[in-house]
């Protein structure tokens, strides 16, 4: 921030002007809005009496039942929710919580996004830490994603007039965006000198404001009416998801999970369900049970809230609320997404649910890898409808790997001992039981060549005194160089999570760097917990407990001759400042 200080001083002179604009914005809702003048056939009529009653005093209907602003926009449930909240907090709408929920459901169902439109941006609702670059138009990307994820833009479809009003809303609420030095040093308006020379291709210079270029792009690329929505809104049905589902998931630091989910339709409300989940953490054998309630928006967007039973994830007692965000595939046989918790939604499980009928399904194994030459290696195979008394020959593990003994068998789990020939070729192996195959369920390897810490770049936020902490879970996996014997190539084999020794090391960003003493602690399972928020008088300049460190994992060398040279890998961790606005939470969990 310090680098921007001078620029900020300049902008403060604009605050008086900004306050004037704010008055205009605040006064606007008091007047009824006249319907915009859209293209003749555009606009989605609102058929909900509740929406008309609660929103109609400002948003007037025209003779076709189209309400101003509302009818000219489609959005994801999350974006509709943010709008409804804003109407309450800033525009003086009064809504009972039940009414707000019903309005949200109606709008998301009748003016939502088609599955094809939502699929590229599911990471946003799933609250994933990924980097997303919008490459279709740089001006639009710079204008919007300087403040928020571009997925929030891609969560909208609007008429041209509505996109213009959206830009106007941003300029009204946040007057500085006009001149704020965002990407490339420009804000919504052009702050660079006018170009007079033609560009390299001989075209005349484009001296429009960035927001004008963005508006042209958005109106063209994300219009209200699309073939995808026309098709989906006609074919959408109330999802029938009740039944048994197999769940496969992965939790950072814990590895794969396998289990089952029973989904029951909740008769009290349409498109709502209750679930009971039981899964096993493959690596440790820990069993977790959970229950949840969920609502499906727009026929395919599963939004749930649940708690784990005692001993479950989320800490001692386990009764921590987890949210569920899943995408229901059109054939109703698969749903996938993320279940998550944490003050910043940072703790989560990537999940995939597959509907189970009467056939055998193999989900995975308790071990991620088998070493050549191993004998009597214990392993469990997870699945559904597994055979009651399988013989060793019924279980296929590929060349050089044989089942020596079936220890026990249940419909959801078979315990076996396996032998791996010394000459078994290394590489991924399919696991088959009773006519069902799980492709690449595990790998066969000869030696550990290296380690890899994941994620390669992590982030935590200080907290605990006033604001919540953001934790960061790391995991370390063993790697084999694969058949080509070279590291960092496509055929490298991931051997799964290993138990390693964790430590923090200084990431020397400045001379005399002392971050490691202050940022926080890393436990034996790779979970980083940051230190307290607030200025720290013990640090130079009262710095917060922020900093950059290396997270290092060490494993004793498998080669006894190199006992003094352990395998080692590291990842970067950024421990940074809190957020003081919680756009994604309602505060109920804090």
């Amino acid at each position, binding site marked *: 921030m310090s680098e921007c200080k001078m620029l*900020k001083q300049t902008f403060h002179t604009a605050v008086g002007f900004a306050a004037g604009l*704010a008055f205009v914005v605040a006064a606007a809702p008091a007047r009824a809005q006249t319907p915009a003048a859209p293209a003749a056939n555009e606009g989605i009529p609102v058929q909900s009496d509740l929406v008309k009653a609660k929103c109609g005093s400002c948003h007037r209907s025209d003779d076709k039942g189209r309400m101003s602003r509302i009818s000219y926009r489609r959005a994801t449930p999350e974006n509709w929710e943010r709008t409804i909240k804003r109407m309450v907090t800033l525009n003086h709408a009064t809504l009972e919580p039940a009414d707000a929920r019903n309005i949200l459901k109606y709008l998301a169902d009748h003016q939502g996004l088609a599955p094809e439109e939502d699929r590229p941006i599911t990471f946003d609702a799933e609250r994933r830490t990924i980097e997303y670059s919008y490459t279709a138009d740089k001006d639009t990307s710079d204008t919007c994603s300087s403040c928020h994820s571009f997925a929030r833009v891609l969560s909208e479809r609007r008429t041209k007039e509505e996109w213009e009003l959206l830009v106007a809303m941003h300029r009204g609420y946040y007057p500085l965006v006009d001149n704020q030095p965002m990407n490339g040093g420009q804000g919504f308006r052009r702050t660079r000198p006018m170009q007079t020379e033609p560009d390299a291709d001989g075209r005349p210079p484009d001296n429009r404001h960035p927001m004008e270029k963005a508006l042209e792009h958005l109106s063209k690329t994300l219009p209200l009416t699309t073939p995808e929505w026309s098709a989906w809104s006609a074919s959408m049905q109330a999802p029938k998801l009740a039944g048994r589902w197999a769940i496969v998931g992965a939790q950072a630091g814990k590895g794969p999970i396998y289990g089952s989910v029973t989904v029951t339709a909740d008769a009290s409300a349409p498109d709502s369900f209750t679930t009971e989940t039981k899964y096993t953490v493959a690596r440790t054998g820990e069993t977790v049970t959970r229950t949840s309630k969920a609502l499906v928006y727009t026929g395919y967007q599963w939004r749930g809230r649940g708690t784990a039973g005692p001993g479950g994830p989320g800490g001692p007692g386990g009764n921590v609320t987890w949210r569920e965000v899943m995408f229901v595939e059109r054939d109703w046989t698969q749903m996938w997404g993320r279940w998550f918790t944490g003050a910043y939604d940072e703790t989560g499980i990537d999940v995939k649910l597959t509907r189970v009928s009467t056939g055998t399904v193999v989900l995975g194994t308790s071990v991620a890898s088998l070493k050549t030459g191993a004998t009597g290696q214990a392993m469990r195979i997870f699945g559904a409808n597994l055979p009651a008394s399988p013989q060793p020959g019924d279980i296929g593990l590929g060349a050089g790997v044989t089942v020596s003994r079936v220890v026990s068998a249940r419909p959801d789990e078979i315990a076996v001992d396996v032998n791996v020939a010394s000459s078994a070729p290394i590489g991924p192996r399919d696991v088959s039981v009773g006519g069902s195959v799980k492709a690449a369920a595990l790998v066969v390897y000869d030696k550990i060549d290296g380690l890899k810490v994941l994620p390669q770049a992590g982030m935590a936020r200080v907290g605990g005194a006033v604001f919540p902490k953001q934790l960061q879970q790391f995991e370390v996996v063993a790697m084999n160089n694969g058949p080509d014997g070279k590291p960092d190539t496509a055929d490298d084999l991931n051997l799964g999570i290993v138990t390693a020794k964790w430590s923090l090391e200084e990431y020397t*960003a400045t001379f005399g760097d002392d971050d490691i003493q202050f940022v926080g602690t890393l436990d034996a399972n790779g979970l980083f917990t940051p230190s307290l928020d607030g200025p720290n008088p013990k640090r130079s300049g009262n710095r917060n407990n922020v900093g950059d460190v*290396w997270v290092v994992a060490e494993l004793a060398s498998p080669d006894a001759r190199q006992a003094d040279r352990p395998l080692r890998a590291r990842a970067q961790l950024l421990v940074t400042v809190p957020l003081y606005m919680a756009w994604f939470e309602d505060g109920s969990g804090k």
Partner: protein
Amino acid sequence: MNHLKPINKKAARIERATLREPQGRPEQGRGTTEDDVVALQRTGLPQAPHFPVGCSLVFSPGWEADRTGGTAGLCQPVERDLFDCHIGCYWPAQVPDQLNHAPDWTAKCAAAQKDWRKIDLIFP
């Protein structure tokens, strides 16, 4: 650097630091930790790794990370600048803005650096 000779102590330290650039990939842990002084000496936009959490990391510099991808260049402590951001609506996605969402955010606390425990998390 071959044609330049340090003429003061600071220049000598910089030369020592740059001559000891670590060999090998950082994720393999090669090179000693004293070697790779990486922040504040680079220019241009941040290179990978990136930290894309939250609403924005691409402001100049970011809220979570500075332009080098680290924390060394952030305004510190954050409380020193917090009210400035609030009043100027400078970080509207990260800090409550005084125009609309939280006009009274600073009411209980005249100086964030002193009374930072009294400011609230805002749910817009």
